């Protein structure tokens, strides 16, 4: 084997190992030793979404004893949701496939994922629920989705803050989910699980076509 070529090849092989495939799972397993519990509560049927969507996001999850970075991609349409999580180093960490109400999760980094993928799914659903802020530029836009009341505080036609509570919640009862749409990130708080997740949208496609002023809130 030509020594020069071998050396070059070895370097790139190593780059591949480090950046895209093997080994990273092992490293991440160490990174990910504490575990967040699975949230119970908020969920909506996929049929509430206005069209197919794909988002590449980076999440930073903060909770007691948990501080995790997690890049992932999520594809949704009216029938299915696919979420693929990657380790911070680029290798596949887990997959989640939802068809209707059936959810299957597969972990590539061992049984104890630091953040249950179902929590990420719930966060994505919460931030992406259609918003009617386009028709309520500055004020409150309240909508109902499958037993949940979604109250958006709008600014310049975009959601600034979202509160999701059970439609039958009593006065003063803590909402299930709070979403804050910042310029640089979307912050989701799941009150049942007591964690904050900060999501940075890296890419999205295809852009949804707002219909009647209703669009995916996370892409605005």
């Amino acid at each position, binding site marked *: *084997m*030509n*020594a*020069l*070529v*071998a*050396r*070059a*090849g*070895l*370097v*790139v*092989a*190593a*780059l*591949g*190992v*480090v*950046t*895209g*495939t*093997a*080994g990273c*799972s*092992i*490293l991440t*397993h*160490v*990174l990910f030793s504490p575990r967040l519990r699975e949230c119970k509560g908020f969920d909506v049927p996929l049929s509430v979404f206005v069209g197919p969507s*794909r988002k*590449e996001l*980076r*999440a*930073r999850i903060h909770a007691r004893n948990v*501080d*995790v*970075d997690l*890049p992932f*991609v999520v*594809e949704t349409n009216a029938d299915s949701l*696919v979420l*693929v999580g990657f380790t*911070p*180093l*680029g*290798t*596949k960490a887990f*997959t989640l*496939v939802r068809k209707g109400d059936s959810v299957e999760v597969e972990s*590539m980094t061992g049984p104890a994922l630091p953040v249950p993928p179902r929590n990420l799914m719930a966060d994505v659903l919460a931030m992406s629920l259609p918003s009617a802020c386009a028709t309520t530029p500055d004020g409150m836009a309240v909508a109902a989705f499958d037993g949940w009341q979604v109250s958006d505080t709008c600014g310049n036609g975009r959601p600034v803050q979202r509160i999701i509570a059970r439609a039958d919640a009593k006065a003063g009862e803590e909402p299930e989910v709070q979403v804050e749409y910042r310029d*640089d*990130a979307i912050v989701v708080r799941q009150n049942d699980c007591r964690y904050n997740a*900060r999501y*940075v949208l*890296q*890419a999205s*496609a295809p852009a949804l076509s707002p219909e009647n002023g209703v669009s995916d809130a996370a892409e605005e």
Partner: protein
Amino acid sequence: MRSATGVVARFTETKELALLSAPLEATGTIYFVPPDRLVRLVTSPGRSRLVVDGDKVRFEDDNGRKALDLSASPMARQMVDSFVVLFSGDEARLHQLYEAEFSSDGKTWHLHLSPRSAPLDRLIASFDLSGSGAHIDRMEAVEPDGDRTVTRFGETDAQYRFGAKELADLFGEDPAS
């Protein structure tokens, strides 16, 4: 930090996952400084940086920084040791880790690597590298489930001279981040 000679290469990475309707693409630059320092800078989508500096690995993006001290994990240590073996061009050790098949027509070459044992064989099915001379043009990594990552390299400089300030910028920690 002193100056050093290493490798700089642009890359375009395409991940083809069976579950997704379209590939995921990323572009950026890789910096490698022998014997054990590496930066993978992704500039699209978003901006992130993976820094491997001996025992230390850290990841930085818009959400902040995560660090891992490999001395805390013998398993992680073992994995990074294997990377260092690859970087150093230790062919004997390479053959301990991988079944290697090399072919060349004089101008271009191809290297096929298959892990010999766990844990690598549970994570990767094969690497296929191809290029010409000292340059690598393409690398394909296939996972056991068939998902694959193809990385194409360009503007490779295998004799890049890193200045001291550049090394500090690449590997130094920004206390503000």
